[in-house]
């Protein structure tokens, strides 16, 4: 009657798991609660003010984005992320790598963050081959979306890092990827994929630009040092950098990280079902389950907590759209200058400013949580991007005057 036995349950491994077992369903035999909650990432019902599992096109939400990515597949299709269940289908179906729909053919590297086959493939065919094989070819040996193998050691269920890119970055900075404190691992397992990356030109290796640090300035220093450019802007011919979801890099500068929280504290909270406690693997926007995520530390009403998050997000959204608007103007004004015969050499400085401005805008726009992970830092970076884009327009206006 006092549900005493509930407190004493220890997880037992019944069905033995092969090394790097890709099929999460087999893992689920041993851990039904984690597996069932994991399957719920299939649910695409809930939408919050700026996030949630509903897939909508980001190109429609802010029309400037199409101009900012002119000449790059992100201007063709770019959606808000959904649950992990859809990771494989979404990468295989996106127009971005479908030459028929204006995309650019890609390589096995895209699969690094989309499938639980990854650890197995890394062991079997090795990174060289995996990263170099064309995407369409690698498709054949990839069967499952993100799964237990991405984050867990089948023997001990301990968290482990299976993504080679983050393992390399960590060891480069003197850390042993297999011997990190548990609370750090509860963030790093997410950082495997929720990070800024680029494909090395030569061998398409997935690499993280973390050499000098994870702030926009430090990433820019690295990209400039290796003279890296993702694409040349169609209209302004500016050498551009594409930022992808630097969620971890932004999060570590926020108050929650400063006070010792990990991604899992809000995105994979403890829940008790029928008295048994386990980690909820339904990874989603925490605003859909405030009672389990925030109320544990913030004893205010759900309405009060949600309202405060939306005040933060509204402020960041307003700056994000204003920044993309100015950058779009800058690209257009350079294009006009080119049409009216301004010489290339003179535009070099203006283009540098546009490259810097868009890198910073994208760092926040591609980042998730609409600034909540680190509100002051997000506002400060967007303020820099507005400053740089306007500086470009001032110098351009002067240029036209001078000639």
């Amino acid at each position: 009657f006092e549900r005493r036995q509930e407190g004493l349950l220890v997880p037992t491994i019944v069905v033995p798991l092969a090394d790097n077992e890709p099929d999460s369903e087999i893992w689920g035999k041993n851990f039904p609660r984690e597996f069932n909650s994991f399957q719920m990432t299939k649910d695409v019902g809930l939408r919050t003010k700026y996030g949630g599992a509903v897939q909508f096109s980001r190109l429609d939400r802010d029309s400037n984005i199409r101009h900012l990515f002119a000449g790059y597949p992100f201007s063709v299709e770019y959606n808000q992320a959904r649950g992990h269940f859809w990771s494989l289908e979404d990468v295989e179906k996106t127009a971005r790598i479908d030459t028929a729909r204006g995309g650019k053919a890609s390589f096995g590297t895209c699969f690094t963050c989309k499938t639980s086959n990854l650890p197995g493939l890394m062991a079997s065919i090795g990174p060289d081959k995996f990263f170099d094989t064309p995407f369409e070819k690698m498709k054949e040996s990839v069967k499952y979306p993100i799964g237990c193998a991405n984050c867990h050691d089948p023997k001990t269920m301990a968290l482990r890092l299976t993504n080679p890119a983050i393992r390399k970055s960590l060891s480069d900075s003197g850390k042993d990827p297999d011997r990190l404190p548990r609370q750090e691992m509860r963030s790093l397992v997410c950082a495997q994929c929720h990070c800024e990356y680029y494909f090395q030109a030569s061998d398409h290796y997935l690499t993280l630009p973390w050499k000098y640090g994870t702030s926009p300035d430090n990433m820019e220093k690295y990209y400039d040092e290796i003279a890296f450019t993702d694409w040349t802007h169609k209209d302004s011919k500016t050498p551009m950098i594409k930022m992808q979801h630097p969620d971890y890099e932004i999060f570590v500068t926020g108050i929650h990280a400063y006070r010792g929280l990990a991604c899992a504290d809000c995105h994979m909270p403890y829940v008790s079902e029928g008295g048994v406690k386990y980690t909820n693997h339904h990874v989603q926007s925490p605003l859909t389950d405030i009672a389990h995520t925030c109320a544990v530390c913030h004893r205010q009403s759900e309405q009060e907590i949600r309202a405060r998050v939306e005040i933060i997000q509204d402020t960041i959204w307003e700056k994000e759209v204003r920044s993309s608007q100015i950058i779009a103007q800058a690209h257009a004004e350079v294009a006009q200058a080119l049409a009216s015969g301004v010489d290339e050499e003179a535009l070099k400085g203006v283009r540098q400013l546009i490259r810097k401005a868009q890198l910073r805008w994208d760092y926040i726009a591609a980042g998730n949580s609409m600034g909540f992970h680190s509100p002051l830092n997000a506002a400060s970076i967007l303020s820099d991007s507005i400053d740089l884009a306007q500086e470009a327009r001032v110098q351009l206006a002067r240029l036209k005057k001078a000639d």
Partner: protein
Amino acid sequence: MQAFLKPLAFAMTGAFCGLAAFLALYFNAPSYSRESSLQCINCHIMRPFFANIDRSPHRAETCSDCHLPHENIFRHYAFKARDGMWDTAMYLTFNESHAIKLHERSRQVIIDNCIRCHRAAMSFTESFGETDRFCGDCHRDIAHPAPMSVTSTPYVQLPPYLPFPDFLLQK
């Protein structure tokens, strides 16, 4: 036939008393009447709250020191019965919320108890209305610091469920 009835009745009452005694002991019934934290932590979701108190300046205080009214014996047990009923109902139907919220009436009981013990420190400033604000707004971590939920102290060692009331165990 009658001869048979008497021993049957006797056996029945014996079995019944034995069962009742066993149930009372198993459910630690005696503990429910007395003032000790052990009675609250019979329900395991109350254990994380005990874990924090056990490690706080208030380790000498029992749950009921703060959570039950101490003005007089009637209000004490009336409140305990009412709160207890609610909690038991929620508990048995697995309806407890992950991050349990305090009822308004319980908040006022707590304020009264803080003042009951800390009257000295409170004497002067209390007259300027500090009491219209919940002590826990500032003393956020004096009792159960965040993070605080039914699952927030997973492996903490707590006193075992005692099948026998402690007066039997005291050597």
